[in-house]
């Protein structure tokens, strides 16, 4: 299998009144067709910005360097016109808040068919038929009637389904879902996760799932990358990451998440505060919060090192000692 989307040495920085801030530093990732990559991290870890850069949607004060290739085409050097044809048609995005990412004054049917009319030059009638078909595929009840509704007339769950339908309209090769269920209630989240699993099984698209929720990743992803302070600290198959986490941060995250399936006595915590991107600690960014810190961590930054099964991590401590 070859990778559809490849990110190589991506660095994203923002210029702020108080100086430049690196939100993403030297991130390399790749996704294959039919695969779901989970990208996990807390706020400020750079997980969203990585793919905002890929979509050419960085805020005005942001710059991205490195390479992002979609099927060989470099997205970072592509001009706005080229990006426009790629976005929607070959790479689509599902946002966290469907209310703000749908145009409020346009009917659902039109919003959906717009992409087709724009990119594939179909006529309005075919567009509408395909939109209806797509709404049915994402299991929206009474799809015919919904085509003529406005976004605010739909509930949060239905709006997120419309967003997914919109992302699927042109059958893109890469779908980036940025916290797709965070704004939803648990019961609705379960419905949407089910739908995403169905999309994953039935389509050959590569899915990137950006989230802070380890449970969501556990259910959907094939591979997981964990980000901290703008860098990838660990990456591996979903089984390895959850069963044999090899980076202290991943271990900490898993330990401090309260679980529904087991009775926990006391929650393990990761001490300290999330890092300030403006003033990152020297060496390994995680060292001030790490249980296993040694002097080397404070002065040197660990490189990503390969272990078996494609599992990589950035930590100086021997794996055995860390994994318990």
């Amino acid at each position, binding site marked *: 299998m070859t990778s559809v989307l490849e990110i190589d040495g991506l660095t994203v920085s*923002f210029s*702020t*009144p*108080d100086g430049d*801030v690196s*939100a993403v530093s030297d991130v390399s990732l790749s996704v294959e067709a039919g695969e779901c990559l989970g990208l996990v991290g*807390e*706020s*400020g870890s750079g*997980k*969203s*910005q990585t793919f*905002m850069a890929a979509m050419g949607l960085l*805020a*005005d*004060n*942001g710059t991205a360097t490195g390479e992002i290739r979609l099927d060989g085409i470099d997205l970072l050097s592509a001009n706005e016109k080229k990006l426009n044809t790629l976005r929607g048609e070959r790479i689509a995005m599902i*946002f*966290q*808040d469907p209310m703000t990412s749908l145009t409020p004054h346009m009917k659902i049917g039109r919003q959906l068919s717009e992409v087709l009319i724009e990119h594939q030059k179909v006529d309005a009638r075919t567009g509408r038929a395909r939109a209806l078909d797509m709404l049915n595929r994402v299991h929206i009840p009474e799809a015919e009637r919904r085509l003529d509704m406005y976004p605010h007339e739909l509930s949060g769950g239905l709006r997120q389904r419309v967003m997914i339908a919109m992302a699927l309209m042109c059958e893109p090769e890469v779908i980036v879902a*940025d*916290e797709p269920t*965070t*704004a939803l*209630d648990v019961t609705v989240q379960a419905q949407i996760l089910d739908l995403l699993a169905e999309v994953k099984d039935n389509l050959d698209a590569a899915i990137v799932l950006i989230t*802070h929720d380890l449970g969501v990743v556990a259910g959907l992803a094939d591979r997981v990358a964990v980000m901290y302070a703008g860098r990838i600290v660990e990456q591996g198959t979903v089984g390895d990451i959850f069963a044999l986490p090899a980076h202290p941060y991943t271990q900490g995250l898993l330990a401090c998440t309260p679980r529904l399936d087991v009775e926990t006595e006391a929650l393990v915590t990761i001490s*300290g*505060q*999330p*890092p*300030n*991107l*403006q*003033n990152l*600690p020297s060496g390994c960014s995680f060292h*001030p919060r790490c249980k296993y810190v040694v002097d080397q961590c404070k002065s040197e930054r660990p490189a990503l090192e390969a272990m078996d099964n494609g599992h990589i991590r950035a930590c100086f401590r021997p794996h055995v000692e860390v994994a318990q």
Partner: protein
Amino acid sequence: MSDAPMNERRSGANLSVPNADALDKAADVEGRSLWQDAFRRLQANRAAMISAIVLIVLAFICFVGPAFVPWSYEEIDWDILEATPPNFETGHYLGTDSLGRDLLARILQGGQVSFLVGILATSVALVIGVAVGATAGFMGGRVDQFLMRFVDVMYAVPLMFFIIILMVVFGRNFYLMFLAIGFVEWLTMSRIVRGQTLTLKNKEFIEAARASGGSTASIILRHIVPNVLGVVIVYVTLTIPQVILLESFLSFLGLGVQPPMTSWGALIAEGAQEMEITPRTLILPAVCLSTTLFCFNFLGDGLRDALDPKDR
């Protein structure tokens, strides 16, 4: 309900939030308030800082300058009795007006009046506007309805009509004009403050203050007023030039200050009548007035940028 830890999408602004790690290390006890932050941003705005300095210098000259000018603003130089060009021997550094009064002295005195009107009338507007707006916004319900309908009615009364009536009833009084203008300008101020209060009222920290046992009065004073102050200050700096202009307009119509006292507006009115013979008498006060208005507007814009809530 969102459990997303802050939306990362607009990271540009988010990233600049100073954070714990830096705090832990910096051992200084003093915090930096939003006011200090805003002042720092204002200092970085060159146009606003220059404007502020120009205004201070202008005001200083207007109030202190007359002591160093050989003529007073009402003294007529009986040797001249007509408009003359600048003459250093007679002490008329900017010449005289058509009655032979010293132009420099009159411009300085006019400046005093204009600045006073601007500041006093705006203060009147500020006090009434903030009190009414904050009360209406925070109390809501009938109090709000009553106060805001009253404001609507006041808006409907034509300004000129209102001022002329006041002049007729109370006679022409220098201070009455301040009050009259202030009474008109507070309307917009109260609406702005009310709008701000309404948004603040639903913030969780107001609810927290209620849960902490705060009374209505203490919540308004301790939480609402300091938080609307930013917007109010911006509006005040933009109101002062409006008021100065309004006074000039009234003086131009003959409803403002009475001779021999003068203001920049009155000087411009006098100068306009003789602009073909002595353009100086029009241009000099006009330049002073425009500079002042210009600086106030620049300063207001600068303050707005500095206090902009989106940077919070």
